[in-house]
Each structure stands twice: as structure tokens, then as C-alpha cells.
């Protein structure tokens, strides 16, 4: 069995988004419940959150934005930049703990204490831009982790795979000009889904040309299309890029029973996707992969989906 880390901290529940908001603390409780009920906890290495050092967040986000976010929280404001981004006084601290927990996880992998890890964090991150909160996201967890791996541990090529049903506009924009971080995303077609980016012709720019790849999928499509498209797009892209470390922006909102999208993946398809990612990690990255939770809003389906996901990570 692999040494799989599991980042979860009850303080991640403190980020409150008010009633009727889909990005709720219940999502994370459901995730934890799925893992606990399946009896996986004793087999996992528990990782507890620590606040991120601000210098790492500054590698991605503008200092003015970091301060603006903290100030908005201290003043008790209930949203940041868009009404989607509902928050409370604990939101800033929670977001710091999310990033800090994942950086701690990355450190444990680089120190060979664990092989891989799943990070059940809130708030999510892939929509967060350099200077703007967006789509329930404040700090771009995955982007900061990629920079940390490069600068603290000398990893040269980080491959990001984003299979949340929404395009990770923030992550794409942060690395658009950068040939050392490959951003791959498969998501519902942007003409029908938030945030309206991630079209096939967005492929990076300047030195980063060819290091961004998007696979938009039409509403109503499901397993068969995902299977074909991931084989067609992701596999050759990573064969070309040879990532030394893989970060997964993991979203479960493409599930057929998740009402945030019109993509209709089965439960089994998520297992298949994770097996593909594990295969890529073994082939190119010495098995080093961190899966970071982004979206996924079906409280009924999350426990099983996340249990399956973690089981794939534990399986040699």
C-alpha cells in the first residue's frame, strides 16, 4: 500500500458562506465522513493545517490583493469582489490554513515521509486570480503550491490537471506565460458554464505557448467523451511535458447528480480519471501527486466519490 497523506482540519469548516450557498462546510464534513466510514483513516497519514507563510502566497497573488482580502475580513464584510464570494470573519484565516496545509503536504512528500496525498480543503482555489477573488475562491491553492515546489524544492516542471467541471481561469492565467508549469483542464464548454474561459484555442502565450491545454466538453456529454478526450489530449501532453510533480485540481461537480453542471459523469468515471492520474504520476513524477479539492456540491454523492478517490491513491 502507498503512504498516502490526508489533509483535513476542522478549522476548514469555519469559512461560512451563509445559507443556501453551494460551497458549504457540509461538503467537507461529507468528504471526511466518506473516508472515516470506509475505515480508511488508520491507513492514512493525517496532516494538520498550519497557516501559510505570506511570502509563498505573494509568489502568486499581488500584495495589495492579500491585504485587501484580510482587511475585508477584519471589517466583517460579507463578500469580496463578486456576490458569489460570500465570506465571514474567519475566511481569511481559513484560506491561509488551506494554502499552508497543502504546502506542508508538499514538504512531506519531498522529504519522503509520504508518497502522495489528498487535501480536503476549503475554500477552493482554481478560480482565484492574481488580484481578484472569483467563483468561491480566494487564494489559488494549487498555483501557490506549484511555485513552492519550484522555489523551495527545485522541482523544474509541475504538471497541473484540473478536472473540476469549471475551467480554472485563475490557474491558467497565472501560468499562461510560463513553460515550467503545464496547465491541463477538462471542463464543461465555456459558452454554457462558468466562468466563460477555457476554450480550445487558449493554449498559452509567448514562452508559455503550448503549455496550456483545454478540453471543453459540451453539456449533456459524459463518460464516453471524457474517456476519449483525456486519452486524446492529456496523455500526449504529459508525455511531451514530462512533469516531475503532478498537482490535481480535483472537482466532483461533473457528476451526473451534481446540479452545478450539465456534464453527466458516472461515479466509476471519477475512479478511472484518478487511475489515469496515478499512472501519469508513476510514469513521470516518481509517484508524486497531490490532489487538492476544488468543487463538488452533491452532499449525497461526495462521501462515496471521495472514498473511491482516496482508495485509488492508496493502491500501489
Amino acid at each position, binding site marked *: 500500500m502507498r503512504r498516502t497523506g490526508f489533509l483535513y482540519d476542522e478549522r476548514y469548516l469555519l469559512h461560512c458562506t451563509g445559507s443556501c450557498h453551494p460551497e458549504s462546510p457540509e461538503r467537507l464534513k461529507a468528504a471526511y465522513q466518506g473516508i472515516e466510514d470506509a475505515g480508511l483513516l488508520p491507513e492514512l497519514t493525517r496532516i494538520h493545517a498550519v497557516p501559510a507563510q505570506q511570502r509563498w502566497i505573494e509568489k502568486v497573488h499581488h500584495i495589495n490583493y492579500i491585504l485587501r482580502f484580510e482587511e475585508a475580513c477584519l471589517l466583517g464584510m460579507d463578500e469580496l469582489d463578486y456576490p458569489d464570494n460570500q465570506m465571514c470573519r474567519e475566511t481569511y484565516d481559513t484560506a491561509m490554513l488551506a494554502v499552508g496545509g497543502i504546502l506542508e503536504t508538499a514538504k512531506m512528500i519531498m522529504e519522503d515521509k509520504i508518497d502522495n496525498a489528498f487535501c480536503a480543503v476549503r475554500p477552493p482555489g482554481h478560480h482565484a486570480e492574481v488580484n481578484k477573488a472569483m467563483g468561491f475562491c480566494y487564494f489559488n491553492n494549487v498555483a501557490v503550491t506549484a511555485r513552492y515546489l519550484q522555489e523551495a524544492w527545485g522541482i523544474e516542471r509541475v504538471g497541473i490537471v484540473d478536472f473540476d467541471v469549471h475551467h480554472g481561469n485563475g490557474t491558467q492565467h497565472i501560468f499562461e506565460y510560463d513553460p515550467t508549469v503545464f496547465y491541463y483542464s477538462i471542463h464543461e*464548454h465555456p*459558452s*454554457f458554464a462558468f466562468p466563460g474561459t477555457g476554450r480550445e484555442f487558449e493554449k498559452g502565450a509567448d514562452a508559455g505557448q503550448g503549455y496550456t491545454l483545454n478540453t471543453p466538453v459540451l*453539456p449533456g456529454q459524459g463518460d464516453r467523451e471524457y474517456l476519449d478526450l483525456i486519452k486524446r489530449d492529456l496523455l500526449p501532453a504529459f508525455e511531451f511535458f514530462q512533469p516531475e510533480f503532478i498537482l490535481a485540481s480535483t472537482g466532483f461537480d461533473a457528476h451526473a447528480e451534481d446540479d*452545478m453542471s450539465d456534464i453527466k459523469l458516472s461515479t466509476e468515471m471519477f475512479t478511472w480519471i484518478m487511475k489515469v492520474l496515478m499512472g501519469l504520476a508513476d510514469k513521470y513524477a516518481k509517484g508524486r501527486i497531490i490532489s487538492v479539492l476544488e468543487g463538488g456540491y452533491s452532499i449525497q454523492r461526495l462521501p462515496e466519490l471521495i472514498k473511491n478517490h482516496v482508495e485509488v491513491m492508496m493502491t500501489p
Partner: protein
Amino acid sequence: MFIDRSMTKNVITIGKDTNILEARDLMQEHHIRHLPVVEPDGVLIGIVTDRDIRSAMPSTLQDELNCDAVDDKLREITVGRFMTPDPMTIQPAYTIQDALLLIQDKKVGAFPVVDEAGKLKGIISIRDLIRAFINVLNIGEPGMLLGILVEDKVGQLKRVVDAITEEKVSFGSVLVSRHWEEGKRAVFPYLLTNNIARIKKKLRDMGYTLLDPMDWYLDQLPKHE
């Protein structure tokens, strides 16, 4: 919606004595297809399009061996000889709608914009209009598109807008179009939110049919008799 907000103001222009090779190079360098021809005082006297240049040039396939001699001859051809003199123009106070209808009607790619004295103020091309419409649609902002089928009668849009506004969601834009079903219209709000599930549910509960992009997809599948 006046075109002086959407037109290109820093226009690349030429004089009528410029030769055809310079005109061609200027277009290639700036990736443009229209060169207004002006007098030194800025008064518009003509326009040259990339098509004018192509038809005034010899074929690229002919005289390949004699390029230098051909170029020397071409240098003697000045813009004044092949430009369209006195082109159709519009004024800065024209609206975007005027420009759209005119471009469709006259089948041209761009209009020079001139003031009352005939001096060039800008140029509005199909590309400028596309940019203006991307702004109007607001699709540069994060959001998502809904398609709602409504009865073709007064007051429907208000109901839809009110229902969405009550959920504290901002509109990027709203388009209304005819629908192929008689007596129906389609409303397309572009909503600046990721929080869409409850809005869809609310609209369905109000009795509206949401246009399902899947219907289009199913239409594309091969039909089995």
C-alpha cells in the same frame, strides 16, 4: 452606442502619391485591410483596401524571374491611381446600429469616419464592431449563459429579471431572440455567477422551460431509421 467610442482613432493613413509597395507593406505591418487616403490637411480623399492592392499587383506566379524589374515598375504606381475616390463615409454621431446596418447593406468591411469638414476622425471596421459586441455581451467577465423559453407577450422579461435579481445575481447582459417555436421567445441572460443551480431550479419552479444545449447535441447524432 455612438461609434466614436468604438472606432479606431489612431488611424494609419497614406497620401495619394505613396506607391503600391509601400501601401502593401504598411497593411502587412499593422495587420489592417483598409488605408484611408488623406490630403496633408487631413481631408479624406479616398480609401485603399487590400483587395484593391491585390488586383492592382501582377500575379505572384508571373514573372518570377524578373522580380526586381517588376518592383521598379510597381514603384511608379501611386495610390491615387487605384484607390476608391470619395468613399462612403459616416460621421462620429452615427450609432453602432447605423454602422452594422450600413456595413450589411453596402457590403463593405469598414467605413472612414469624417467630420463636417471632411477631415478623417477615425475608421470603424467589422473588427471594431465585433469588439464592441464582445463588450456588450460582457463575455470577458466570468459568468454563465442561461437560455429561457418564454411566451411572446409583454412582461415576461420582467418576471425573469426580477426572479434572478431576488437571488442577488448581477447580469452581464440579456439577449432576447425569436424562437423557432411560434408564439415563443428565447431569453438569454449572461449571469455573473457560478452559483447557478438554485436559479435554474427557481425558474423551473416558476414554470419556465430552460433551453437545454443537449437538444442541439442530440440533433447532431446520426438518425437511425
